[in-house]
């Protein structure tokens, strides 16, 4: 087990390193940030001074090594645009994104699991067929467009909910959170619903498929034959066994939810990391792009690892295989 863990962590570290190298070279290929940062009227002397200040006069491999050396100390360089440590910019905005992604996933689970359970238990019910067809529509909905429609309906026409920003926040552990205030919650509803739509369909379909797979199994039939109450059979014998694949997928989906939050954050002007990265891409703000990717990839890799470990505890078969 520990050997396996060490191997997995080494693998993960290698992926992160590889990614920084590829992105570093890629970012260099796309053009010089200097042209965007300073105007045409700056004279040659000032231009050279700024280039030297940003370290852009060094050869690429030296820049990369300097970057790696800094990264070891937690310094990923200063943003060209904000002239602040890039990592601080990201970490400042990350809570807003995390808050949005977690709310969206929770919504997806709370709505998706019961509906999926129903559709799986009664596959021939017309309502289930509607749910399954509805989930295809849910898969197909372009997130950004639904966001616009939500704003138009609930903010412009009905005036029930605010259309942009985070609203009032309250501090907890030194970080600002929207869900701690009523106003913040009101701001959170629309973006969270928007981001969760795709995941609701996913959870619904996964749960329903899992239930349909588990239902004809012998342990379920045995539990029924024993005369257990239907509720207990459904909750303990069926649902628990469908949760294993669900946990895996949700764990892995968390990363993609954070990435796709870019779209929702843009639509709802949510001040998260996604909005920052989009602006940074447009401004060729290399350190911020690189830092964002490193943070997201680290998060990804550790999530993968966490899901793998969790899997070992949830599924005795995998656990035993690992022990052998």
């Amino acid at each position, binding site marked *: 087990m520990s050997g396996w863990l060490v191997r997995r962590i080494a693998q993960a570290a290698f992926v992160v390193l590889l990614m920084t190298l590829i992105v570093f070279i890629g970012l260099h290929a796309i053009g010089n940030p200097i042209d965007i940062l300073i105007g045409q009227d700056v004279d040659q002397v000032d231009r050279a001074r700024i280039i030297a200040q940003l370290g852009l006069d060094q050869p690429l491999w030296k820049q990369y090594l300097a970057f790696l050396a800094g990264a070891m100390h937690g310094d990923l360089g200063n943003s060209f645009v904000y002239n602040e440590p890039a990592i601080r910019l990201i970490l400042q905005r990350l809570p807003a994104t995390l808050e949005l992604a977690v709310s969206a996933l929770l919504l997806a689970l709370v709505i998706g699991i019961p509906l999926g359970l129903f559709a799986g238990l009664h596959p021939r019910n017309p309502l289930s067929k509607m749910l399954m067809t509805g989930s295809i529509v849910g*898969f*197909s909905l372009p*997130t*950004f*467009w639904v966001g*616009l429609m939500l704003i138009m309906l609930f903010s412009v026409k009905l005036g029930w909910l605010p259309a942009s920003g985070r609203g009032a926040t309250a501090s907890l552990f030194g970080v600002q959170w929207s869900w701690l205030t009523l106003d913040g919650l009101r701001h959170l509803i629309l973006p969270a619903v928007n981001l969760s739509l795709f995941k609701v369909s996913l959870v619904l379909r996964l749960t329903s498929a899992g239930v349909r797979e588990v239902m004809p199994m012998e342990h379920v039939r045995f539990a029924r034959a024993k005369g257990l109450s239907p509720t207990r059979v459904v909750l303990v014998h069926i649902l628990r066994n469908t949760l294993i694949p669900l946990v895996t997928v949700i764990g892995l989906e968390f990363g993609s939810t954070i990435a796709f939050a*870019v779209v929702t954050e843009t639509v709802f002007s949510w001040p998260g990391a996604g909005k920052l990265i989009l602006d940074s891409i447009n401004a060729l703000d290399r350190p911020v792009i690189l830092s964002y990717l490193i943070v997201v990839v680290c998060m990804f890799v550790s999530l993968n690892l966490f899901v793998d470990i969790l899997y070992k505890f949830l599924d005795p078969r995998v656990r035993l295989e690992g022990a052998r």
Partner: protein
Amino acid sequence: MSTTPLIPETGKPVRGAFKRRQSLGRQLVADFARSPAAMGALIVAILLVLAAIFAPLITPQNPYDLLQLDVLDARLPPGSMNGAGTHAYWLGTDGQGRDLYSAMLYGLRLSLSVGLGSAVIAGVVGTVFGLIAAYAGGKVDSLIMRLVDLLLAFPSILVAMMLLAFLGKSVTNVVLTLVLIEWAYYARTARAQALVEARREYVEAARSLAIPNWRIVLVHILPNCLPPLIVVGTLQVARAITLEATLSFLGLGVPITEPSLGLLIANGYQTMLSGEYWTSVYPGLALLAMLVSINMVGDRLRELLNPRFVK
């Protein structure tokens, strides 16, 4: 009269006894038609494709031709007549006086070409790599599959945003980006299926006839890998269209001179809040209709072609 096989106890004919004699393609069509929803979706998809192909014939103006636009007609609500009184703007106009209905059909054209184009190219590339991995095995196999795993581990939107930031805005670059992301799905499917097929008896038979390996792979194994690849392909077309629309909405996709549906929605977004809802709503509905119909067709195909679901 041929004798219909009968179930001994009931004397009723065995269901589907004659179906087996039909060609596989015909049976697929017949099975497909048993789902009215999927049939409806197929018809909608075909109609939309036709509308996109014949867009120049069924639209009053070419939205890319600036000479045909009249700024005086800007921001007209749906149903208004144009300044010259020659045709109506059924779905209204946008900020440049562009007929929204025409712009939508041309946008649909672009969205569909990008989606279909990238899906076909990625399908060919991915299938080739998948077959190579399955055929070569060993180091080549693990190298290709590691790459596929790495690519699939990252969310598509993130990879696409980075690639487009590297490559710059243009229709070709969007297609290239989508191909770079999507080929991995096909490669994984093709490899898995090829490995299953390679163990079948017909492959052994072909080997024993001393048929060259390349011929076995291309003529015997590849056709049998197609059903799951077609399913992946259908769903990937929808994914590609969504991704293109999303990227264009974010301002990283197609250039502003050739608006796809996504870019039309993004442009409409700026005027939507001042009450001109049509510029965003209608292109979105067109996009939604396209995506839902493709996904429903794909879902039905998966039900039929995936042996796990066949009853």
